[in-house]
């Protein structure tokens, strides 16, 4: 009977080994790796000037192990701290909460250096805290995203680090 016990133990142990070794490595041929987003500008807590005709200096590096597909920028207000309550609006009748939502396709590449000034903050935008979000998908549908806190202000604003 002893040998039978041993046999069972060996069986169980081997099952465990197979089990553990099989999950050490991902052998799926299909892509589940997310793209990588590196947003160089604007930086966290950057102050951006309202009504700047030159547009936001937007500098983004994207990469994926297989193929990039598209990216999207979403900017919306973050008034009243975390929440988006309309209570502050009473004092700022003449201004409009700034929202931005646009996507760009970047097909056929593994790496993309993106640099543009297409995001323009109109002069009537309400100053305050905003969220800037960047989403990026690859050809398989893997998605990465990133959130930044930014401040929209009528005064000053961030200097552009270089000219264009």
């Amino acid at each position, binding site marked *: 009977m002893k040998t039978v016990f041993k046999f069972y133990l060996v069986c*169980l142990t081997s099952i465990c080994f197979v089990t553990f070794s099989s999950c050490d490595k991902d052998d799926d041929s299909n892509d589940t790796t997310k793209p990588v987003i590196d947003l160089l500008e604007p930086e966290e807590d950057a102050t951006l000037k309202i009504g700047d005709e030159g547009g936001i200096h937007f500098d983004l590096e994207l990469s994926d192990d297989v193929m990039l597909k598209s990216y999207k920028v979403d900017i919306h207000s973050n008034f009243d701290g975390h929440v988006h309550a309309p209570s502050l609006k009473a004092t700022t009748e003449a201004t409009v909460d700034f929202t931005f939502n646009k996507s760009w396709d970047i097909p056929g590449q593994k790496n993309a250096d993106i640099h543009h000034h297409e995001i323009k903050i109109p002069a009537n935008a309400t100053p305050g805290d905003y969220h800037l979000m960047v989403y990026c998908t690859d050809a398989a*549908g893997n998605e990465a995203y990133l959130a930044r806190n930014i401040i929209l202000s009528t005064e000053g604003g961030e200097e552009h680090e270089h000219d264009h």
Partner: protein
Amino acid sequence: MIRLLTVVFALPVTAQTPDTTKVILLDEVVVSGSYKKTSELNATQPVRVVEKSFLRDYFAGNLTQTLEHIPGVHSMDIGSGFSKPMIRGMGFNRISVTENGIKQEGQQWGADHGLEIDAFGVERVSVRKGPASLLYGSDAMGGVVEISPVPPPSENQFFGEAALLGKSVNETLGGSVMLGLKKNAWHTKLRFSEQHFGDYRIPADTVVYLTQRLPVEGQKLKNTAGFERDVSWYTAYRKGGYYANFAVSDAYQKVGFFAGAHGIPDASLLKDDGDSRNIELPYSSVNHLKITTHQHYAWDGLSGYWDLGFQNNHREEWSRFHTHYGTQLPPATDADKELEFSLNTFSSSVKMKTFYSGHWEHTTGWDLQYQQNCIAGYSFLLPEYNRLTTGVLWLSAYRPNKKITVSGGVRYDYGRLNIPAFRDAYLANYLQEQSYDNDMIDFYQWRSYPVDRKFGDFSGSLGLVWNPDDIHLVKVNIGRSFRLPGANELASNGVHHGTFRHEQGDASLNSEQGWQLDASYTYEHRNVSLTITPFGSWFGNYIYLKPTGEWSVLPHAGQIYRYTEAEAVFAGVEAEVGIDFLPCLNYRVSGEYVYTYNVDENIPLPFSPPASLRNILTWKSNYAQVHIEMQRIASQNRASRNEDPTPGANLWNMGATVNVPLCGTRVEFTLSAQNLWNVKYYNHLSFYRKVEIPEPGRNFQILINVPFKSKVK
């Protein structure tokens, strides 16, 4: 062979057991074991029954976390308070939880919605792994957790228990008092339990979420405190062939959400407020009221059963009023009530069972369930709906001799689901202001589409139990199960406030259907026991949220995720070996593995539990028990799309129970320690996994149980 009066636990396929006990005269000795043994022998699928000592040794104040010690069962946690069970990689509405024979309706729906059951009041749980639609209809595809009452004490008595629980990881203080009376035909029990806990500790000073490093001040996860209050009353009556029980229970939980997990992280919200026990916004509260009765009448060779239940699951989420749509103003009352659901469920199940022949057993049944969901709040998540399901079933079991049981059955279910449309006027207005065209506005403004669908599904199973001798037990079963698509899968459209994804339903989805083949082999001889339970299932149309690659124009949303059908395969095994080195010293090793595969996409399915292995050494005597456990959780690299792989961990746990004779009773002290080395690790299935929050750190726990009884005439 000596003729013996043998207790046969009738209807092995339902949770109703002590109350369906039937005494019959058989030609041969069939069984003479415990409830546990009988359940495991009668079911053609793997069933694991756990009773008092298991529930006490692994008590966690939360039933799901206790059941996690059963191979094949996992706990999907939402902080330290709420958890929902998962069996063999299936959770949500792919498994069912039943109490007193009635399917509990509540926890299935939301990712952040736990199971509302008083852990103190649970005395017996059977975990049925594998498809169980035949018995319970829609939803019970992956398995069932059956909570059932234990038989009353045999003698007339007044009895009860008082329990006290303390935990260090979140400074839990809890307790429960039960008073019971057994007098002649009557048996009644009243229980009150309460638990209060503070913010839980994690072995980390910061968590990194969305590339932002967030502080965890004092290693306590802010606003994860909560409390739970449960009341239940149970009464049973037995006279002659008549048996009835009535149960009323109310479970209330209120638990805060870690603010960093609710939206975009913001360090200013995570500052220590000096109070680790307060519950601030955002939080959720849920109340589950349940009224059930089980009726049974036994004639000669025939038994009738009727289960009837009404439940109300009332859940609210509170979060400071926020909107992205400028025209939406806070509601005049309850301005911060984000979501409210009130799900009413009425259930009825009638069964007739015959025992005329010693070899054959036939059961026929009719189930009916009606559900109505109502919603409120300034935000929107799940639509209102009405759902009617009804099914008829036939089960037969054939026992040609004491070694073999063949059982099988078929069932047909009809379901009707009605979901009214919900238009978000604020959103429509917002999109208009953003100058989107009418087609776009029409695509987004409907937060739920109108759906009126009828479904018809067959389910069935056929299985064999072969028990050649006392040493070996072999089971094989093949079953077909189904699940009606949920209201969210059919009709939802918009940003899910918890996952921050634009989730879109598909009104044309069919019922999810699957086949499962499972086997089990048990060996028990002298000082060695072994159980191995492999399984494999195939789904023609497994419903999952598929990333579409289409951008959503809604604020806070990336791409649109659409509920989509895909061919899917699950396979896995649980194995357990126990060896008694000495009569008082036992070593047990159990392991489990689940493989999931989305055939259409050639990737794993979401929420695949990692493989794990538990090694437990137990020393036991008549009045004390000590165990030490090494748990190895493997890394889960088979993550689905847009799900992160999770590294593995080694955890050490300990526990001890001592019975101390005191004032004429035996007071039980159970001390335990989890995560002894304060290891920082992640639960791949946790709601907080995606926000990179590790699991709770080292925990010391004490449970004191004082049973008492006195005879009454």
